Each structure stands twice: as C-alpha cells, then as structure tokens.
C-alpha cells in the first residue's frame, strides 16, 4: 500500500487511527502489527511470509544470545548482555545466523539476477556458454532492503549489549513491521524504538505535529516530486537532447528524488507521531551541503548512520591509518550504492561518492570548493551530487555515458528532441521547477516549519493536503522512488 493512494488515505488510515484511539493500550501493539502486515501484504500477500521468517529468525537469535550468556531469563524483562565482555561460541553462532539469514534473503531477492547476468557476461567474454547461471527474474519484495537492515540491527544491538532482547514476539514484529517506516524508512534501529513500543504518549500536540508532517510530505510528493518525475522521465528517455534540456532534466530528477524521498520520510514521521512514535530525521536540507562529507550528514541520515555504526566502524573506521580509512570509505560507499540496487550504475554511484569522500578527507575534511564563498560551495557540491544522480537514474551504463555527453554538448541533437523538449518546457512544469528550487534553497524544512504551529501554518498544511489529494486524483499510480530499493 502506498501512503499517497486512495485506499490508504480514505480507508486504511482512518481505520487504524480509529482502532488506535479506541482500543486499550495493551492491544495497540498487536493491532499495529496486524494492520502493518495488511499494509505490507496488500501489494503481494505472500511477501508477508518472508517478513515473518526474517522477524522470527532474529527474534529467536535474540533469545539465544541471552540463553547462551547464562544470564537469568526469568524476570519480566530479559537482561542486557554485558558490554565489553567477549561472547561465547553459541552467541557468535546466533549472531551469525541472524546476519546470514538477512543477507541471504537480501542477496537472493535483490542480487541474484544481477550476479547471474554478470557471470554470464564474463562467461560469454571468455568464450564459455552464454548462460551458465540461469536468470530467475525474481520479483523484489517491496522494502526488503529496509526491513532486513532493521531486523539485523536488533541482533547486533543485543549482541553488543546496546539493547535488551524482547521476550514478547509481538513487540518484536511490531518493531519490524510498523507500517509508517516499513517500506522506505527511515531505517529504525531497534534500540531507539524499543522503549516506545512498550510505552508512548498520545496527545493533541503530537497528533497535530504529525498531521502537519503528513500534509507537507503529501504535498511534496504529489505537487512537486511527481511533476518533476514527469520532466525527468522524459529527459532521461529522450534521445539526442541538447545540453540545456539535459541539465533541466537532471536538475528535475535531483528535485524529484529529494522531494519524493523526503516526502516519504516526512509522512512516516507524521504517521509515527499520530501513533505516538518519534522516528528519526532522515533529511536535513541536503542540498545546502557545502561538501560531499556534509551531504552524507544530511541525506538519508538513517542509512548513513546504519552504515557507519554497523559497517564502517567495525571495519576499523579511521582508526587503522590513512590508506585503510580510504579503503573503508570506498567499501562502505560501494556497498551503500549496491544497497540501492543491483546494477553497475549503483556500484559506480557508490564508488563516485566514496572517491569524493576520500578526496575531501585527504583535503582535511574540507570540500573541494572550500576556497570559495558559501553559495559557490553549495552550488558546486550540488553539481557534483547531480553528476552522481546521472548514474543513479540512468537504466544502463551506456545511457549514463550518453547523458553525461549530452550535458557537455558532445551528443548530436536529434530532430525529434524538440518534441521531448516541448513536452517539458510548458509554463506549468517550469513554474513547478522554479518552485522546487525556491523551496530547496529558500524555505524552511518540514522539521523546522512544523516546530511552531501557528493558525496560519495549520491552515496552510490542511490546504496543501486537500490540494494534494485533489491533484492525486488526476495522476496515475506513482509509487515512491525508494520503494524499488
């Protein structure tokens, strides 16, 4: 189910809100879990089974971690594992099972075909039979990258002694399946939400803030991201566009992905608040970044935090010397790229960011444009980000190269390019493009805007929400970009 769909807005959300505020607290976790499974299974019911498998493997691994510790398990709550002590073989196996299961599920559904294609291409290149690894055309379960990472974080947190294992499986399932963040994040780490599952407050203040978040997220998605997606789709699909049109399409994509993804995060945070949860901030004015290092503190914060805590630091971080730090950075960004999708384009996108991060670290944690005034630093960084988006958006490596060539005028302009150009140069799209730029660099972000809710702001939120619903009805189904990851 999609937040911006008719069935979610008109039926599912009112129903879950009604249940949430009508049932006693002790029933809420179960209710939210069941409704989250309905939410998730709506697109493809059998995928719920996959999520259940993941959840229960990690849940039992959490129990095993305590059991093999020898700590007492008879209290109302299971104990924390002691920090700073070594773990025994049973505990290591339990953690290994959790990590292996999650990575195996992720690898099979997300990377099998990509690996098979690559193996076949290599085989063909060295004269072997063309299809030594059969393609399975496996459908990617929505949100699998998000919930496997979240579920894995539970076992790791318990293993490290950062979180208390759960006795009640329903509580655990609720953490994994909680529908506001289920499909496209923010990636919630178990220890940050554990207490909220057991106890959370409901009040008008929270609900109103959640409403404001949701309304603004919806407006970002419907009024800005989707029209920019139309422009970007046309520009990326076109053949032989001129440089100006290509830049226009690329910037439109930069706006689309930001408004689309941050819209989802805003709606997730908003829904979380309506149900009493405080989820984490996922975007912090990313296009205000004056360096790539800064970008990764502002963009998809929950993913970069996850990668830092569960990958970069365990790899040694910056503690093992300069060259090892660069290697760790490249490894983390490469895997971060692959996390987004199984294609060489994502590998290159990840390496590109890893390279820029390493370069900035080499320059002493300063941006490449550090000698220039702030507006130029921000503009330069935005251009670097956009060059990366070419690989992120293009279907293939050859298309990426073609777009890059178009950007600098090396591609021949096609006679038919005027048709693509005419379709995206209408006053409507140009106006929205300018509005996006104005909001990105001139308007307060959702977190700040909703921090102080005046009557005018409240009316603005409701008006934007109503307008978004109305415009939604003229648009076709347009799921969030991050659903595919």
């Amino acid at each position, binding site marked *: 189910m999609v937040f911006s*769909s*008719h*069935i979610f*807005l*008109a*039926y599912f959300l*009112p129903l879950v*809100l009604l249940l949430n505020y009508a049932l006693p607290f002790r029933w809420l976790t179960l209710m939210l879990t069941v409704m989250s499974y309905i939410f998730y299974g*709506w697109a493809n*019911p*059998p995928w719920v089974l996959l999520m259940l498998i993941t959840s229960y493997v990690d849940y039992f691994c959490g129990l095993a971690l305590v059991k093999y510790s020898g700590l007492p398990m008879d209290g109302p709550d299971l104990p924390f594992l002691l920090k700073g002590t070594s773990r025994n073989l049973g505990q290591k196996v339990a953690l290994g099972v959790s990590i292996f299961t999650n990575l195996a599920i992720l690898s099979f559904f997300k990377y099998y075909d990509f690996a098979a294609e690559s193996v076949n291409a290599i085989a063909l290149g060295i004269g072997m039979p063309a299809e030594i690894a059969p393609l399975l055309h496996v*459908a990617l379960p929505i949100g699998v990258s998000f919930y496997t990472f979240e579920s894995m974080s539970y076992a790791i947190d318990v293993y490290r002694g950062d979180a208390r294992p759960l006795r009640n499986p329903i509580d655990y399932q609720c953490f994994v399946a909680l529908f506001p963040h289920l499909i496209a994040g923010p990636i919630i780490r178990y220890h940050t939400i554990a207490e909220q599952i057991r106890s959370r407050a409901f009040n*008008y*203040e*929270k609900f*109103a803030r959640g409403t404001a978040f949701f309304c603004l997220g919806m407006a970002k998605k419907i009024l800005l991201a989707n029209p920019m997606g139309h422009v970007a789709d*046309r520009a990326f*699909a*076109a*053949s032989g566009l001129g440089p100006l049109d290509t830049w226009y399409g690329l910037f439109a994509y930069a706006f689309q992905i930001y408004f689309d993804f941050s819209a989802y995060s805003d709606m997730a*945070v908003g829904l979380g*608040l309506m149900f009493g949860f*405080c989820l*984490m*901030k996922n975007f912090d004015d990313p296009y205000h970044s*004056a*360096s790539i290092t*800064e970008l990764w503190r502002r963009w998809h*914060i929950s993913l970069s*935090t996850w990668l830092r805590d569960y990958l970069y630091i365990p790899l040694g971080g910056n503690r093992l010397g300069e060259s090892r730090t660069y290697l760790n950075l490249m490894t983390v960004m490469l895997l971060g790229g692959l996390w987004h999708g199984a294609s060489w384009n994502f590998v290159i996108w990840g390496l590109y960011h890893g390279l820029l991060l390493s370069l900035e670290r080499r320059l002493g944690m*300063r941006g490449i444009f550090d*000698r220039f005034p702030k507006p130029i*630093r921000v503009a330069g960084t935005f251009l670097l980000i956009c060059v990366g988006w070419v690989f992120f958006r293009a*279907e*293939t490596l*050859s*298309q990426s190269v*073609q777009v890059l060539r178009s950007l600098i005028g090396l591609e021949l302009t*096609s*006679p*038919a390019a*005027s*048709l*693509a*150009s*005419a*379709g995206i140069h*209408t006053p*409507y799209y140009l106006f929205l493009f300018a509005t996006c730029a104005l909001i990105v660099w001139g308007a307060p972000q959702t977190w700040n805007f*909703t*921090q*102080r*809710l005046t*009557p005018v702001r*409240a009316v603005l939120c409701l008006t934007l929400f*109503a307008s978004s619903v*109305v415009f939604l*009805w*003229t648009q*076709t189904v347009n799921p969030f970009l991050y659903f595919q990851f």
Partner: protein
Amino acid sequence: MPPETPVHRKHTEEDSQAELNSTEVRPAVARGLSWGFLALLILVPLSQFLLEIAQGHRPTIFRVFEAPLAGRWTDLADRKYLAAYETSLEKSSPLRTWVQANLQSVMTRWLGVGNHKVVIGQHGWLLYQPGIDYVAGADFLGRGALGARMKAMKDREVERDPHPDPRPALAAFIRDLRAHHVAVLLLPVPDKSMVHPEKLTAEASRAALNNPGYARFVAEMEQAGAVVFDAAGLTRSTVLTGRTLYLAQDTHWRPEWMGEIATAIAGAVQRHFPLPPPTRPLVTSVRAESRRRLGDLVEMLALPVDQSLYAPEEVVATQIFDQSTNRPLAADPDSDVVLLGDSFTNIYSDPGLGWGEGAGFAAHLGRALGRPLHVIAQNGAASTGARQEFLRTEQARRLYAKKLLIYEFTIHDLTTANWRPLPLPPQQPKPVPAQVETAAPKQTVPQPTPPALVAVPLRVIGQIELLSPLPVPGRSAYRDCLAFARVKVTKVISGEYKGDVAIVAFHVMKDNQLTDSAALRPGDTVRLELQPLRKAPEIYQSMQRTDTTDDFEHVPHFVIHFAKEP
C-alpha cells in the same frame, strides 16, 4: 588559506526525539488541525458510503468481503483480487470522479496540461504521450530501453509473459508465413507526433522523425523476408505540402489520408508481390458520408461530460459498397489477402469507435486491390491479439490459401505492446502448390472443420481452469475489453458441444468499469450460455482482448450469460 569550515553536525535519533517532543502549538490550533485533517480523510469514503446507501446500492467498501463470504478465503491472499477491489473503490467514488474531471478541465484550459496519456498541443490539437515517447525516445531496441520496458511490464503485471522486443515474434511470424508461401507486408502506422510535430511545437524539425532504432528494425524485418511499407516517409513528405492528415483530437488518421495510404499500399503490393486476378471481380461504388464526434484523446482527458473545451470534429468518410450486394464491402475469410490490424484499420468501420461504418481501411484497401480482404483487426491488440486470432485453428486452416498478409500496427506499439512469439499451430495444412501459385478457386478451398457448436443456445457447466489477466480500468487503451478463459466442460445442459475444453471470452471491462465477470477465479464452477465468438455482435470482433490461453485449437466462444454455481 581560509579558515576550515565547520562541518555540519549529523542529526541523531536523540535529537529527533527531543525536537519532536517540543512542538509549539496552542491547544485550540492542535485540535483544529487534528480534527480538520480527520475530517478531510473521511470526507471521501463517507460521501461515497452515504450516496450508495441513498441510491439503494450495496456500498462498494463491503466488496472486499464478497470472496470470504462465498467461502473463497484464499482470494484475500490474491493480489489481483485486492487490486481489483482497490480499483473499484477509486472508480466508484463520486467525489473523486467529479473533482478529477473538473480539475482536469481547469488544468487543460488554463495551464495547458494534459495527463499521462494526452499532451496538449497548439491550436486545439491533442497528441498521444506514448506516441511522443516513441518518437523522441532513445533507441527502442537498445539494451537499456528493452530492460526498462521488461521491468515496466513485469511491474504492471498485466502481461503474464512479457516480450518487450518486437523482433523475435515478428521475425518468427514472417518466417513461418514465408514457409507457407505467404508474403508479408508490414505497415507500421506513424504516430501523430511524427506526422504533425508542428502541432506540438513551432520549433519542430521539418525532417522525417522517427525513433533511432527504427531503421534497424526495418532492416531486420526485411532480412526476415517482409516488405516494410514506409508510411512515415510518405506521410511526412505529404504533410510538408500543407495538408492535414490526422485528426486534431484523435490518435487516428483522417479518412482521406487513410484512403490514400490504402492506394499506395496497393501500388506497393503490385510492385512486390503481384497478385493473380481475384476469383470474383469486385465492383464497388462509393458514398461520402459526414461524421462528427469528439476524438479519443478528448475522452482520455476524462473531462466533464458537458465540457465545452473541445467541439466535435467533423470528417467526410468514403464508404465502399459492394455492388453485387449493394451493402458495405464486407470481409471475406476466404480471401487470398489477409489484413491484420488494430484501431487504425477499424476507425471508420467499427461502430464501437464512433466514427461510422463501411469506410474503414480494409474496405479501401480491398477496393484498391480489387478484392475483399480477410480482416482480423482488434483495437489496441495488433501486436499479439490479432496474430493470436489469425493463428486459431479455424483461421489458420485457411492459411495455405493466402498469398499475402498485410500487418498493420501502430508504430508506438513497438515500444508499448507485448509481442509474444506465437508459433503456428501444430497441425500444418497440406500444401497445395498449385493453389499457392495461382488464384485459389473458392470451391477448392478446404473449409475449416465445422465448429464444435452445432445447436443454439449452447449452455454448459464447467470449471474455470485458466483466466487471462484483467485489464486495468483507466489504464487500458480502450474502455472495453474481452478476457479469455479456458473452461473444463463438465456438463452440457443444452445444445451440443464436443470435447471437454472450451475457450470462452467474457466482456470483462465495459466503459472502463470491470464487470461482474472480473470477480471470477480459476477453480470457479460456472454455468455459461455461449455462442461462437465470430457469430457474436460485430462490436466484439474488434474489441481489445487479453488472451493468455495460448489455445489455437478450440473455437472461441463468447459468453452471453454466466452464473456462478455453488
């Protein structure tokens, strides 16, 4: 060196919690915002619910319980069932329908914005977005484009067996036909944006526009043995003389240009595959008839019924009459020339399309070739549906008597349609060389086996074994659709039916609404009243279809009436 810039501090989970728990809002504002939001949320379902109750209808919201109440609990785990329910909720919302139409009207009138199908051109012209995407898009045979289309087809899940690349299916089809001594002429009909790009933008090139992959496509088809008629080149050179060849608000060609293309095709046929004289000389007469209606692109905009933005467009179509019968020239299944096509073939002959009858492409082409044609044309389904129909046994048995197959399809089908390879049926007809080389006297043409149906009305009870995918209302090319099913016949109630398998076609989408037959599922036992599809009303012959039965043996039947058996 400037001082080091402090790097932005990363926001933490603790920061988020602190920020979210410190909202400045007055209690009255918080209440107003919360309740206002809830009111907006329930406005849509509540208005629909009350209206349906007031009209005495069963509220749509309860439809999700129909399957479990009927004992079909497993349907709740069927994504198609859930998707159909979701669509029915959307489509049946009166508030949504009203707002959508009126907002589209405002956006079209004041902002010049169409929708995902329609692009607003200049001077009242409308263009078809998938057509523009084809022309302006990257090489449609490129690996990236094919991969993206494959992914899109899988995501849509309308096609069970997606084939985005048209070449394998077409090349195999051409080779199969050539093996039966049937020549093939392909007629990719140009999209409107290729013909009249100046109606979209004044900066349009005067050069012929086409997708970069088209030349490769033509070369491969010619290598497979087909002749590809260059309608795009001819059309573009003609339009540069100042003529208007396509309808302003419709995706299709104007009737006079369609007639000229038919004449040009006849010329090409004479050049490439001279046909023997027809068995029966065709004498025709013509009659001009004026027709007036709103184009299909206006309908795709889904404006209010009483919209005044677009006035009906008028054309003068030329009807072709067979003087021997004094009736509009009809198709002849025994003709040595067969025309496969889509709505470009049907536009002036299919009453369902609203532009009149008797003046279609087949009639004009038949007149130009001096013989009636065997016509199989399905709206929106030239890529696979028309071939499927042609390959059904009853048709395919006529194959050896054919000399030429003309395959008309819309050029943007190359990037939007599913091109499933369909091998010829296993029972090959006996070759009759003399008949292949010369005109096939009508009396020597072996007739297809009599259909299984020998009495009407035919009523059977059977169990559905396989159902073709459902069309998605509002996202299909046309408002009506037939869906095919394979039924295991368990009992013949009346009439006579030989065999225990029937291929049946349900009218599954009518005027962009799924009909009751859309609720049927494999495993359901149904009581059916049937008639052979070819004897069903003409409107069903050319209707858009979804058919994944891959059954070319059984004569397809049209479901006149059905009822589920307990």
